[in-house]
C-alpha cells in the first residue's frame, strides 16, 4: 500500500497528467471506478506493458492507487490529489485576481 504523503522529489504532478494516454486512463477510472489492468488495456491501442507503464507514472505522482487482486492489479483514482491540484491553481489564480484589482485601483483611481 502506498504512503499518503510523497517525497519532495516525486515526479511533478502535472507532468504526470500532461499525456493524452494518461489523461484517458484518469478519465476512465473516474467514470467507471476501480478497474484492473486487463480492463484498462482492452479498448486501448496499447500493450498491457505500455498501459502499466503509464499507470505507474500516475501512481508515482499520487494520482492513482493500486492493489493486488489475484494475478492482476486493480487501479483507483486518488481523488484528493486531483482536487488538490485544481485547488492549488485556483488559489494562485484568485490571488492574481486580487492583485489585479489593486493595480487597477492604483492606476485608474489613485495617484499612480
Amino acid at each position, binding site marked *: 500500500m502506498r504512503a499518503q504523503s510523497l517525497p519532495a522529489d*516525486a515526479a511533478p*504532478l502535472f507532468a504526470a497528467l500532461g499525456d493524452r494516454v494518461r489523461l484517458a486512463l484518469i478519465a476512465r477510472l473516474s467514470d467507471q471506478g476501480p478497474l484492473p489492468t486487463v480492463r484498462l488495456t482492452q479498448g486501448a491501442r496499447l500493450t498491457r506493458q505500455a498501459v502499466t507503464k503509464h499507470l505507474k507514472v500516475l501512481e508515482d505522482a499520487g494520482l492513482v492507487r493500486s492493489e493486488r487482486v489475484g494475478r492482476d492489479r486493480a487501479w483507483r483514482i486518488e481523488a484528493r490529489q486531483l482536487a488538490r491540484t485544481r485547488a492549488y*491553481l485556483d*488559489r*494562485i489564480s484568485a490571488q492574481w*485576481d486580487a492583485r489585479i484589482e489593486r*493595480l487597477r485601483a492604483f*492606476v*485608474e483611481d489613485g495617484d*499612480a
Partner: protein
Amino acid sequence: MSTDRIEKRIVLKASRERVWRAISDSARFGAWFGVDFDGPFVAGAEMIGRIMPTQVDPDVARLQEPARGMKFVIVVERIEPMTRFSFCWRPFAIDPGHDYSQEPMTLVEFVLAETEGGVLLTITESGFDGIPLARRAQAFEANESGWEHQTRLIAKYLARDNQP
C-alpha cells in the same frame, strides 16, 4: 487547459506611461502589490522585500496584516521599458524557518500593449509543473481563512465590474 501556467488579461484605463511606472517602479509596484522593496528594480538582481499590507484596499490590508514584515524575495529577469517586466519567485514561500534557496521558482511576466480604451496588460505566471507536491501543500496551510475572505472580496469586485 495548461497546468503549467496562469494567464490574466486586463485593460487598464490609463496611459501606457502610468501603467509602466506602476509595474516597473519598485515603490509604486509595492504600493499596490503589498511589498516594501529595498531598492529599484534592476534586471538580473535579487530583490529582498518585506510584506506590507497594500495601500489601496483597507479590507485586504487587514487580512495581510498577519504576514507584515515577512521576507519576500524576487529575482528580476527582464526590463523592456514600456513593454515587459518579469521576475522569478516562489509563491507561498513564507515559512521563516525554511531555506527555500534550492527550490524551483515560477516566472511572472507583465506585458503591456496599446489597445482600444487603454492599455492591455497580460500577466502570466508559469513553471507550476516544476513545483514539488510538498511545496503545494503549503499553499493551503498558509492563511486558510484569509484566502477565503480574499476570494469573497474578488467576487465582489468582479460582480461590480462585470469583466468578461
